[in-house]
């Protein structure tokens, strides 16, 4: 057997074998996730062999053919390898051999095999978690008696055993204990048990979107995407398990689905056929609101009663209760009838107490036939649905009251199926959405949670290096030996097969094992239902395991990846939102739906002028229409750290955003904001006219300070490195290079900046002629001679500036005072670029307002003004053509603040972009629609541009990368 281990290679022997054609690069390319594959291009057809060999020592092996099954056995004894053991007493066989197809029969008939460590069979040693996991798993399903379990326990050691048990208990323990103390005869109690299950969905929810809004990270700029988030009703999002599936409850495709669906989304009228009135967000269905609220309340009461009776805490908020309430009249079966129906079941329960505990939501009480039941699939035999599983389980009676002891169960699926979709339709609507009946039959065993966990731990989400190793070696299709075709693992025996190649289908067909788990995503596929099924319990387990694995991986992986994992990213960055209780309550109180359409006016709200406060109003309008800032505040991201929250300007901004986006059409009175501004920026206090730009800077400064809890010490520690939202959005890096004229040494400093103040032609401060028309349209502006553009101003801003003979600076390199030139460039672009035209000139000679018209574009490319592009220019390299598909530095205009009047007295108004391309003019309390032409023809005092493409990695990684280079 060949192996791919590098120590066995000698470079000489390898050279002829490696044959590094581009073909294997291609393979690599195919293997790597798409975004990386392109990188291979750089090696072109001539890859550097030495480099490659250095990188992939394992690649340059002796081209050994893994076994026919693609397994990669290793010659070293004691390594994980593919072998088989028969039963728990299997003797270690020294010659691993690949699996033969006929052995599968054995596997399903009680003997087991797994790829496991042979040395692990020596029960005195503690095998690796992988081994123990598999052992436990396999044994758990073999149906052997307790001695098997004992063997396992001995094999894996007491500690590991404890751990396993704990993990198993953490999932199933809660309900089990409830069940064991009381026998849940009352179906309503069962319902609440179902709820307890729901409770398990952890509180990992983002406090986000309490108002149905989500934060949109990148491209949040486009209101279209905001529209998407708006249009999602809160109740769509509120499901404790988001509709990741088509059929949230899982289950049989054509059977019980519609009622279940009803139960899931009762408050979403549009989902039930009747499309809500297309628009007029203002008049969102008020009537419906009242109605649903009423119902919700009613249900709250009902649920409360259940709580009192059953002493079961449900974590469900009113929303969920409302859902339950709104079920299509869950056929309030007389309780007596339920009781009688449950009689045979009760016996079974006695026999197997864990069964009902195992799946509160998957309980198999046969439902009364629902009149509203949709057409059933051809088969599900009514006979079975009446009397489900009467067949007693071959289970020794002696083990009845020892629930914590994990106990093997009969092989979940050796029972012959009855035709396609042969599962009975054991569905109880009161219990919540039932799962697929096949999954339910999987879930009857007491150990199923544990087994599932083990499968997840070992083959799907591997946290530890050992399990990863075993996964890497063993997760290969048992038929064709590849790994690419959506590998699935049989849930009933050890079999991996390709999904796309239908190998797993064949297996399922021949062995009647009709559940399989996706090895890369953890989904459960049911071959009877011919679809993935979603089961609450299983999803819960999957989620826990995934989180666990991520945590483990973060703690066990190497330094670099540890750093990366410990950052918020990777797995935790975009968790699905799961409602917490307070959120559910909030949602219950605000059942209005909002839809975004082109005539949607939420967000447009005038601000009352409180006495020369137009300078504030126009800035507030601009800020509140900053897409990324809006997303931040509307998703409730601000956590106040101020000692006195009532003085926190950020909190005030937050409530201001709420006010402006509340949909209330009457103008808002920003008195509180003004008060806070007066407190925190004393120079702006009073009813005098102020400069909007000054206010903007002051506001940003105060906001910035308050974001950090006004902790001066913290800010002082790292003034340039702040992660507050204001800094993240508005701070750019202004690089100033001072070049010594004598030695051409450059000293560079980078200053953070919040805005860019631009000189205007006509100001007397400095020479202006910028030789317009020198370079033809940079930003798509047609160059009309005589009209200065924003680009001109920026070009002037970034031009080398002779500091003059009067301002000699000591050069760092030649240690003498020399004349020098200074040049400003953008080192880092802010997300929101704010340009300030210096229209107010206060020079010694005169004080005046410069009214020169400056044309500014809707889209701005800042690439020419970047420090990096300047360097490339200096180095004589070709400058990138701006149309190279590089959107990285592109900006689009979203707000313009104008000043009308004179220096002494004037008025500020602002144009703001509302949807992607609608413009409105905000003049204090009056908001009118404006055309793009109005905007572009306006004079312009402050221009706000928003980056079109946001970078997504945090500073840390960037730094790491630059260091790596």
């Amino acid at each position: 057997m060949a192996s791919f281990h590098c120590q066995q290679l000698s470079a000489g022997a390898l050279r002829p074998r490696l044959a590094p054609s581009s073909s294997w690069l291609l393979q690599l390319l195919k293997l790597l996730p798409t975004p990386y594959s392109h990188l291979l291009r750089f090696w072109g057809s001539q890859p550097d062999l030495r480099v490659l060999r250095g990188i992939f020592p394992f690649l340059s092996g002796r081209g050994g053919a893994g076994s026919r099954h693609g397994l990669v056995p290793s010659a070293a004894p004691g390594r994980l390898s593919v072998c088989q053991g028969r039963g728990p007493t299997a003797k270690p066989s020294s010659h691993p051999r690949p699996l033969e197809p006929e052995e599968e029969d054995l596997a399903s008939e009680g003997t087991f095999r797994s790829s496991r460590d042979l040395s692990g069979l020596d029960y005195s040693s503690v095998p690796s978690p992988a081994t123990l996991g598999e052992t436990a798993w396999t044994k758990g399903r073999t149906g052997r008696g307790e001695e098997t379990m004992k063997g396992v326990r001995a094999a894996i050691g007491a500690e590991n055993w404890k751990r396993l048990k704990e993990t198993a208990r953490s999932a199933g323990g809660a309900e089990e204990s409830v069940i064991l103390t009381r026998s849940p005869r009352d179906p309503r109690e069962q319902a609440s048990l179902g709820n307890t299950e729901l409770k398990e969905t952890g509180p990992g929810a983002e406090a986000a979107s309490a108002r149905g809004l989500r934060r949109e990270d990148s491209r949040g700029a486009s209101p279209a995407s905001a529209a998407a988030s708006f249009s999602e009703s809160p109740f769509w999002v509120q499901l404790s398990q988001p509709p990741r599936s088509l059929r949230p409850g899982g289950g049989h495709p054509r059977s019980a689905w519609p009622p279940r669906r009803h139960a899931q989304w009762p408050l979403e009228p549009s989902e039930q056929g009747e499309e809500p009135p297309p628009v007029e967000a203002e008049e969102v269905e008020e009537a419906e609101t009242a109605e649903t609220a009423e119902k919700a309340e009613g249900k709250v009461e009902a649920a409360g009663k259940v709580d009192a009776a059953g002493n079961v805490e449900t974590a469900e908020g009113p929303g969920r209760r409302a859902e339950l309430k709104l079920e299509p009249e869950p056929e309030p079966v007389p309780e007596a009838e339920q009781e009688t129906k449950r009689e045979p079941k009760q016996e079974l329960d006695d026999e197997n107490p864990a069964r009902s505990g195992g799946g509160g939501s998957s309980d198999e009480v046969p439902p009364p036939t629902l009149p509203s039941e949709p057409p059933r699939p051809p088969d599900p035999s009514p006979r079975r649905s009446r009397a489900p599983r009467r067949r007693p389980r071959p289970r020794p009676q002696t083990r009845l009251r020892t629930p914590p002891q994990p106990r093997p169960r009969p092989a979940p699926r050796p029972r012959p199926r009855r035709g396609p979709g042969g599962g009975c339709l054991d569905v109880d609507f009161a219990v919540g959405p039932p799962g697929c009946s096949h999954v339910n039959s999987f879930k009857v065993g007491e150990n199923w949670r544990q087994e599932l966990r083990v499968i997840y731990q070992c083959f799907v989400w591997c946290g530890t290096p050992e399990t990863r190793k075993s996964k890497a070696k063993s997760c290969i299709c048992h038929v064709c030996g590849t790994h690419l075709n959506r590998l699935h693992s049989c849930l009933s025996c050890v079999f991996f097969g390709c999904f796309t190649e239908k190998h797993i289908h064949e297996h399922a067909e021949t062995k009647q094992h009709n559940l399989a788990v996706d090895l890369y995503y953890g989904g459960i596929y049911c071959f009877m239902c011919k679809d993935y099924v979603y089961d609450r319990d299983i999803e819960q387990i999957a989620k826990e395991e995934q989180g666990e694995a991520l945590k483990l991986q973060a703690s066990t992986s190497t330094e670099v990846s540890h750093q990366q994992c410990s950052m918020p990213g990777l797995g935790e960055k975009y968790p699905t939102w799961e409602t917490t209780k307070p959120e559910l309550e909030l949602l219950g109180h605000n059942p209005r739906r909002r839809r975004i359409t082109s005539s949607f006016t939420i967000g447009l709200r005038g601000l009352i002028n409180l006495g020369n406060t137009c300078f504030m109003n126009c800035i507030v309008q601009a800020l509140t229409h900053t897409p990324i800032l809006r997303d931040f505040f509307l998703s409730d991201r601000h956590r106040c750290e101020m000692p006195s929250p009532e003085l926190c300007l950020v909190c005030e901004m937050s409530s201001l955003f709420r006010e402006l986006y509340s949909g209330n059409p009457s103008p808002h009175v920003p008195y509180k904001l003004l008060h806070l501004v007066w407190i925190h920026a004393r120079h702006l206090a009073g009813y005098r006219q102020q400069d909007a730009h000054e206010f903007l800077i002051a506001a940003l400064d105060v906001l910035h300070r308050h974001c950090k809890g006004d902790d001066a010490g913290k800010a002082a520690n790292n003034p340039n490195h702040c992660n507050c939202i204001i800094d993240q959005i508005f701070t750019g890096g202004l690089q100033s290079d001072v070049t010594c004229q004598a030695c051409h040494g450059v000293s560079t400093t980078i200053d953070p900046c919040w805005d860019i103040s631009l000189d205007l032609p006509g100001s007397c401060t400095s020479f202006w002629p910028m030789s317009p028309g020198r370079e033809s349209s940079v930003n798509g502006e047609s160059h009309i001679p005589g009209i200065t553009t924003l680009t001109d101003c920026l070009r002037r801003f970034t031009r080398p500036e002779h500091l003059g003979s009067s301002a000699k600076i000591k050069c760092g390199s030649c240690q003498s005072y020399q004349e020098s030139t200074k040049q400003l460039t953008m080192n880092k672009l802010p997300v929101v670029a704010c340009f300030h035209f210096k229209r107010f000139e206060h020079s010694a000679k005169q004080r005046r307002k410069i009214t020169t018209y400056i044309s500014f574009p809707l889209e701005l490319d800042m690439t020419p003004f970047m420090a990096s592009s300047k360097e490339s220019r200096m180095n004589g390299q070709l400058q990138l053509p701006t149309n190279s598909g590089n959107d990285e530095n592109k900006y689009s205009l979203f707000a313009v603040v104008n000043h009308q009047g004179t220096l002494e007295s004037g008025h500020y108004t602002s144009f703001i972009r509302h949807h992607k391309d609608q413009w409105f003019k905000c003049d204090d309390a009056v908001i009118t629609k404006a055309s793009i032409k109005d905007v572009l023809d306006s004079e312009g005092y402050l221009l706000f541009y928003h980056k079109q493409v946001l970078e997504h990695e945090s500073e840390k990684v960037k730094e790491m990368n630059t260091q790596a280079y």
Partner: protein
Amino acid sequence: MNKDAQMRAAINQKLIETGERERLKELLRAKLIECGWKDQLKAHCKEVIKEKGLEHVTVDDLVAEITPKGRVYLGVGQFTQIMNCKYTFSGIFTYFFVEACRLFTKLFY
């Protein structure tokens, strides 16, 4: 099994062993969410489901229907954006990736 397949298997094995595969997957997922691709696809899925009726759609149908769309949605801009990722591999992959990035930057910037 031919050589390419072996190579592929070996790389895949290594990626899994080191945990890179999961991390890459997570990264890709995060990026696709960030650039809005996921939401687009989700909206499209909803349409398909509405059109066909919930009972008549399976995951496989949906995948088949969505896959070509998904490639379209992931337009050039988004794609380059995703490719512009900053990612640090652990172990041996670091070197490989850094080299590749360097070459990439030289070639295109």
